[in-house]
C-alpha cells in the first residue's frame, strides 16, 4: 500500500496524472469530430485531383466511429504516448538508485513490481476510459447512439490489451538502461502486435492485441465470440509470465 501511494505521489508530482488524461480526452474527441467533418475538410482542401465527394455517401454509425477511436487513435498514437510516458517507470529508479534503496528494505520484489504495474495500469485505464467516454458522447451526439452495454464490454476487452501494454513496457523498463531503447522496442513490438491482429486465427490465439480487435468487433457487431474469452486467458498468462521474468531478473541483481 505504501509503495502504491508512493507511485501515485510520484506521478502527481510529475503531472502525469494531469496531462495524460487530457491527451487521451483529446484523442477521444478527435475521431468523431474528424469523421463528422471529413467531407468539409476534404472540400476545403479543394483542387486536390482524384478526390470525389459523394453527397449520397452514407453517414457512418456511432459504433463505427467508436471502434475507430480504439483502433486508430488509441492503438496507434495512444500507445506511443503511453510508452513514452511510462518507459522510465522502472528504468528511472534503476538509474537514480531508488530501486536499490527500496529493495534493501523489507519489501518483496513482487510488491515492488505490482505497485508499479497496478498504479500505472489504473492511471492508463482512467485515461482510456475518459477518452473513450468523450468519444462515446460525441459519437452519440454527431452520429448514432451505441448501446451502453456493448460499449462497456468493448472497453473491458480493450483494458485487457492495455494490461499487456503496461506490463510489457514495465518489462522493457526492467531489462534496459536506455529510455530510447525501451521506447523503440516497446513501440515496435506493440504496434506490430496490433497490426498483425486478425491476419491469421493461430496468430490471433496468442496475440494479446486480439483483445483490441475483439473490442472493435463487439462494437461493430454487438456480439461476443467464444474466441474472445481465450484471448483474455492467453493475455493474462502472458502478463504472469512477464511479471515472473521481471522478478527473476531483479532477484538476480541484474540492475
Amino acid at each position, binding site marked *: 500500500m*505504501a509503495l502504491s*501511494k*508512493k507511485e501515485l505521489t510520484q506521478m502527481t508530482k510529475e503531472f502525469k496524472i494531469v496531462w495524460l488524461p487530457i491527451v487521451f480526452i483529446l484523442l477521444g474527441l478527435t475521431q468523431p469530430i474528424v469523421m463528422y467533418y471529413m467531407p468539409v475538410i476534404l472540400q476545403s482542401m479543394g483542387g486536390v485531383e482524384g478526390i470525389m465527394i459523394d453527397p449520397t455517401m452514407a453517414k457512418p454509425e456511432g459504433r463505427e466511429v467508436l471502434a475507430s477511436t480504439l483502433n486508430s487513435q488509441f492503438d496507434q498514437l495512444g500507445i506511443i504516448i503511453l510508452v513514452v510516458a511510462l518507459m522510465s517507470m522502472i528504468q528511472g529508479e534503476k538509474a*537514480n538508485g*531508488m530501486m*536499490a*534503496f*527500496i529493495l*534493501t528494505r523489507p519489501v518483496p520484489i513482487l510488491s515492488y513490481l505490482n505497485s508499479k504495474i497496478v498504479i500505472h495500469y489504473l492511471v492508463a485505464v482512467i485515461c482510456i476510459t475518459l477518452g473513450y467516454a468523450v468519444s462515446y458522447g460525441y459519437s452519440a451526439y454527431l452520429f448514432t447512439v451505441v448501446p451502453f452495454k456493448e460499449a462497456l464490454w468493448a472497453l473491458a476487452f480493450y483494458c485487457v490489451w492495455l494490461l499487456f501494454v503496461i506490463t510489457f513496457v514495465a518489462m522493457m523498463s526492467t531489462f534496459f538502461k536506455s529510455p530510447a531503447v525501451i521506447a523503440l522496442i516497446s513501440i515496435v513490438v506493440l504496434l506490430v502486435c496490433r497490426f498483425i491482429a486478425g491476419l491469421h486465427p493461430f496468430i490471433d490465439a496468442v496475440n494479446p492485441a486480439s483483445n483490441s480487435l475483439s473490442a472493435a468487433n463487439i462494437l461493430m457487431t454487438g456480439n461476443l465470440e467464444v474466441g474472445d474469452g481465450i484471448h483474455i486467458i492467453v493475455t493474462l498468462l502472458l502478463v504472469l509470465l512477464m511479471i515472473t521474468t521481471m522478478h527473476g531478473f531483479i532477484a*538476480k541483481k541484474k540492475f
Partner: protein
Amino acid sequence: MGCGENMLLIENLQKSYGQHEVLKGVALKVEKGEILGFVGGNGAGKTTTLNCITGLVEQDCGKVMINNVPKSQSLDYKKQFYFIPDTIHVFPNIAAYDWIHFVLSLYEKTDDAKLQSFIHVFGMEKSINKPMGTYSYGMLHKMALITAFTISPPILIMDEPLNGLDPLAVVAFKNCLKEYSENGGTVLFSTHLLDVAEKICRSICFLKDGKIVLHESVENLLVDGSLETIFMEKQANEG
C-alpha cells in the same frame, strides 16, 4: 564490547567482479550492542562487504546472518537492519517528512513522537517539510540518520555516515549512537575518519585487499598508539 550474543555473523565471504577478486573470504562476528568501525584504504572492499550484507550485491560464496536470520530469508532478514548508503537516493520533489513516513511504513513503524524528537536532535525542524531536492549532501545524511534512529532496527549499517555532517550533527550522531547501543542496538559503519572512529567505536575492523587483517577493541588498540599509526603500519606491513 558487546554482550556476547552474535548480531552479525559473516563466514568466508567472497565476491569477484569479472576477474577482479574484491572479497577473499571475509569472516566477521559482531556482538549485540557493539559499535564497530570498518576501516580500510580505498578499494579494500568495505563497500562491497556492506553491499553483500545488505543484499544489494549477491556474494559468490559465504554465509551472512543477522540476529540469527540467514540472508536467504530475504524479508525477515531485511527487517533486522537499516542501511544508510554513501549516496542517499531520494525523490527531489517530495518533502523529507513525507519520505521518512514512507520509509517508516516499509518497516511497519509509526512512532511520530520518536520521529519528532530525532528531527529536533538533528536540528531539522525548519527544513523537514521542504522538498529533498533542495537539500545539501549533509542534510540528506541527517534525514537518513533521523529515519534510521526512529526505526531502531537490531543493527544499523552505514557507509561513511559522517560525510557532510556539520559539527553539531556529528555530536548529535555520537549521542544517538551511544543511546542506541546502550539499548541493545548494534552498529557497523565504514569510515575514513580514524580520529572520529577512535572516539565513537568500541571496536575496529581493518580490511585490506579483501581480507580482514585486524579486529580488535579500541581500548586494546590504543595501548599501541593512535588508530592512525596502527592503520599506517597495517597498510605498510600487509602490503
